[in-house]
């Protein structure tokens, strides 16, 4: 290890460019939020429901779609979307839009598996008991199935949120102004890559820890009065 070099590190440069780094980080957080809410919760639930549908004409296309998005790297997906969407629709997308589309579908594929497992993890007896009590479809799902399914889904869904956040850093390949892009711009401007990249890594690590912490809190809350 080059101790002289480490002693000569000057982190004031990271402090000076902190606003740009934080702005980049905010882009990552924004992408994570949109990806998780629209991709994970909304589309994920739709795909999960379609995945347990009775008709094979619904089930099989959804299965193929989900497997495709789960089995290819996000880096390839993002660039693929950026070139394929204009060809397919005739509407050119900005890098940010392409990145968001790829992220949303990617997250929805992972989340749909988790949500499906959560719903299927609720015992058959619970469904039958709700039917035996004469509950309607709405009450059955709202009062019996979903509260239990949520507790099963929560830990893996938080794992997904963390993965989504980590994945947003990949999207910098499409030239969107996220943390990675800000860091590489600043480091090639100041010639102090060690200070800048170390700061960027620590910032991202802090956000990741925060997501983990929120998740643990939420899981504990949902489990209150159970286990």
């Amino acid at each position: 290890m080059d101790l002289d070099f480490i002693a000569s590190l000057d982190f004031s440069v990271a402090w000076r460019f902190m606003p740009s780094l934080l702005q980049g980080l905010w882009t990552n957080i924004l992408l994570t939020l949109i990806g998780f809410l629209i991709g994970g919760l909304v589309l994920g639930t739709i795909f999960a429901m379609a995945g347990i549908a009775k008709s094979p004409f619904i089930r099989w296309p959804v299965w193929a779609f989900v497997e495709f998005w789960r089995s290819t790297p996000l880096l390839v997906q993002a660039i693929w979307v950026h070139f394929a969407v204009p060809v397919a629709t005739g509407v050119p997308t900005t890098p940010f839009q392409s990145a968001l589309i790829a992220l949303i579908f990617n997250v929805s594929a992972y989340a749909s598996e988790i949500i499906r497992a959560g719903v299927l993890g609720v015992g058959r007896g619970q469904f039958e008991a709700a039917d035996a009590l004469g509950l309607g479809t709405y009450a059955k799902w709202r009062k019996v199935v979903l509260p239990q399914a949520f507790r099963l889904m929560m830990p893996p869904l938080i794992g997904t949120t963390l993965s989504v956040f980590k994945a947003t850093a990949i999207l910098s390949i499409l030239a969107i102004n996220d943390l990675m892009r800000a860091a590489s711009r600043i480091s090639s401007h100041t010639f102090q890559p060690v200070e800048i990249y170390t700061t960027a890594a620590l910032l991202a690590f802090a956000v990741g820890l925060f997501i983990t912490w929120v998740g643990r809190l939420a899981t504990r809350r949902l489990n209150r009065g159970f286990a």
Partner: protein
Amino acid sequence: MLDSAFLWKHSDALFSGLLVTLSILGIGGAIAIAGGTIVLVARLGMGSLMRRLAVGYVVFFRTTPEVILIFWAYYCIPFVFGQRLTGFWAGSITLGLIGAAYLSEILRGGIEAVPRGQRDAAMSLGLRTYATWRCIILPQALRLSVPPFVNYFTEFLKNTTLLAAIGVGDLALAAFTLGGQTYRHFEFLTAIAILFFLMILPVSIFARTLEKRQP
């Protein structure tokens, strides 16, 4: 839609990209298995200082985005360690270190899933520590670890594409370069997406059948 003759003409470049991807997989995988074992031993079998270090290692490498770690390794290792490093090695080692954190957690999960009664039974039979681990705990723990291990393998394979961002000529970079040269990004990207799909889908289906077979 896909011009197969055109793709075939460039299959050499794609094939050498595939070889680079597989080498990253091999080197990173070896580091991950060796490192994961060391981290696990530090976490379970040593003093509290080593345990804390191991926990910190796992948390850091599992929480920080892979791309940032790869960029850090590529741009900062030459300065900090005074050691020149190609993108290929910087990236493979980084992916290996990340993999070590995940693998140690997978193995730990397997060990903790072995019922306590097994350990008690081994003790009441008078087995020593070594025999208990060698004959009772590890065989069961490893079997429990196989499905998540196979699952992580697919994640690892997908992560190899991240090295394209630091200029390693893997499958993804081969496709980007060819796309740039021929202005036919769409075809090359679709080709490698299908290639990844064909490599990963069988593995993940295999992992799921393993998961189902377990009690």
